[in-house]
């Protein structure tokens, strides 16, 4: 699971593989960054025009997972807190959206801020007691949350809202009138827009004063405290913000799948987020998109190789990836960039 939180990010990130900032290369870095951003945008915008609806739907799902992983990254990558419970926040967001749409006929657009706020509060409150727990103990606490979630969703007294074991079926939204897109294309662009907005906010957060405080807590909590950082507040805020992202992803997920049920939000989902986080690169925001792609597509590839042994194929692909890029796509991209520079 993980040793104490400070080591979660591994000393090797700071020792051996440390990316040493070289001021002269900064401008070149900037150029590369802009080129890759623009390439990403062009490709992302073109996808619905190039592929069948089904594939567009898959890419939408990938973006949803990427947003969830982005949220987890804010917590784990930038604040050093470990969570196996993000399926709970994802579920909370999904059920918020589903219940609002199903019972109160609220437009899907308004379910996103609602899911975000509810999950932020839930995450913040969960973060308060979790403060006293680190590393493995935090893992167990979050893990309990993941286990409890499907069981709570099934609970008979809540059945009126949650639909109990049967779940809730919701109606897929149409594009706004006058937009010449089908449902899948529209939802793709909608998710992409939400995702980009959340990404930019996350980037600004990480570069802000608060972001530096979060990282200071990750790297050296005692020093951070002595610098006057309010540990309790910041760690809870990190939890809340992370839950907010994952909750919005959950709401989007519910909208595109058109269905929520307890079985959709088991521990397996939390583990998938964690795998996606590591594959993308802990502490590297763009890694989320790689993580999302892995979570969605690799199981399909594994199934294509062998139906009976799909789990084994998946495992082997995962191990090979870690061999090739021990620090995920982040390390790989950094290595490629440093080769480009020299």
């Amino acid at each position: 699971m993980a040793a104490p939180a400070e080591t979660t990010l591994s000393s090797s990130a700071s020792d051996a593989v440390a990316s040493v900032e070289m001021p002269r290369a900064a401008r070149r870095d900037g150029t590369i960054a802009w080129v890759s951003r623009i390439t990403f945008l062009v490709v992302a915008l073109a996808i619905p025009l190039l592929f069948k609806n089904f594939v567009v739907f898959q890419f939408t799902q990938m973006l949803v997972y990427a947003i969830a992983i982005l949220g987890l990254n804010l917590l784990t990558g930038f604040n050093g807190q470990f969570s196996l419970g993000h399926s709970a926040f994802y579920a909370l967001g999904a059920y918020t959206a589903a219940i609002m749409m199903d019972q109160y006929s609220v437009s899907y657009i308004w379910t996103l801020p609602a899911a975000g706020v509810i999950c932020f509060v839930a995450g913040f409150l969960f973060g308060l007691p979790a403060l006293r727990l680190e590393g493995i103990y935090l893992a167990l606490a979050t893990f309990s949350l993941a286990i409890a979630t499907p069981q709570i969703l099934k609970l008979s007294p809540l059945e009126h809202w949650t639909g109990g074991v049967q779940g809730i079926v919701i109606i897929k939204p149409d594009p706004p009138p006058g937009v010449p897109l089908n449902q899948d294309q529209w939802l793709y662009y909608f998710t992409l827009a939400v995702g980009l907005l959340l990404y930019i906010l996350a980037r600004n957060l990480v570069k802000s004063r608060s972001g530096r405080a979060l990282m200071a807590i990750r790297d050296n909590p005692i020093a951070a405290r002595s610098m006057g950082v309010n540990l309790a507040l910041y760690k809870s805020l990190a939890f809340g913000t992370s839950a907010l992202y994952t909750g919005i992803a959950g709401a989007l997920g519910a909208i595109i799948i058109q269905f929520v049920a307890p079985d959709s939000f088991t521990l397996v989902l939390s583990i998938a987020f964690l795998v996606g986080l590591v594959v993308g690169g802990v502490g590297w925001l763009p890694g989320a998109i790689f993580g999302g792609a892995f979570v969605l597509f690799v199981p399909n590839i594994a199934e294509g190789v062998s139906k009976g042994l799909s789990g084994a194929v998946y495992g082997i692909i995962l191990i090979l990836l870690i061999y090739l890029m021990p620090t995920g796509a982040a390390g790989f991209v950094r290595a490629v960039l440093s080769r480009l520079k020299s």
Partner: protein
Amino acid sequence: MSTLLDVKGLVAGYGGIPALHGVEFNLEEGGVTTLLGANGAGKTTTLRALCGMIRARGEATFAGKRLIGMQTEDIVRLGIAHVPEGRGTFTRMSVEENLQLGAMTRRNGSDIKQDIERVYDHFPRLRQRRAQQAGTLSGGEQQMLAIGRALMLRPRLMLLDEPSFGLAPLVVREMFHILAALNRDEKVSMLLVEQNASLALSLADTAYLLETGRIVTSGPAAQIREDEGVRRSYLGY
């Protein structure tokens, strides 16, 4: 006196960025050699390279054996005990278990028991705390424990990385007394890395000055201590 450790053209670094650019020095059997220099000069890196904790190139010969490329565990078995920066205490274990670990490469049980007693004779405070969790010791006690653990190897050479770091002046003085005694009575050779140059020069017989990964000057400790120029430009006192 014969040469125990001979280092030539030592190059090492972290993550592809070299921190040592061909360091050369040697150490006489039974002697105390000190490496001096500012923060980041490469002192700790030199020690780490010598005991295989980081990858290095060049030559380092210890009693006729080439150290470069050897595993740390094997280097220890040659009789080189490294007292690392930060003391390397096994915090969750008792003081005595820490000492037993120091003798991990030795086989004879009764010898080990005697040696533990000998360490306690050197450091009586450790005897009082033998059953205590090592993480609860004070900084000075942990430093004593680290030296004691190194002695348990019955080393021919001790590598000492900043033994005075973070300790009260009184404790430091006591520590260096003990180190001098160990060198004198137990014939342990020492390679000492220190920021506190005057302290180091009082213990050492030979001194080398490192600057950004290179030896810039060297000589008998007494001579370096008297050299006004060196003192002013490198040692800052």
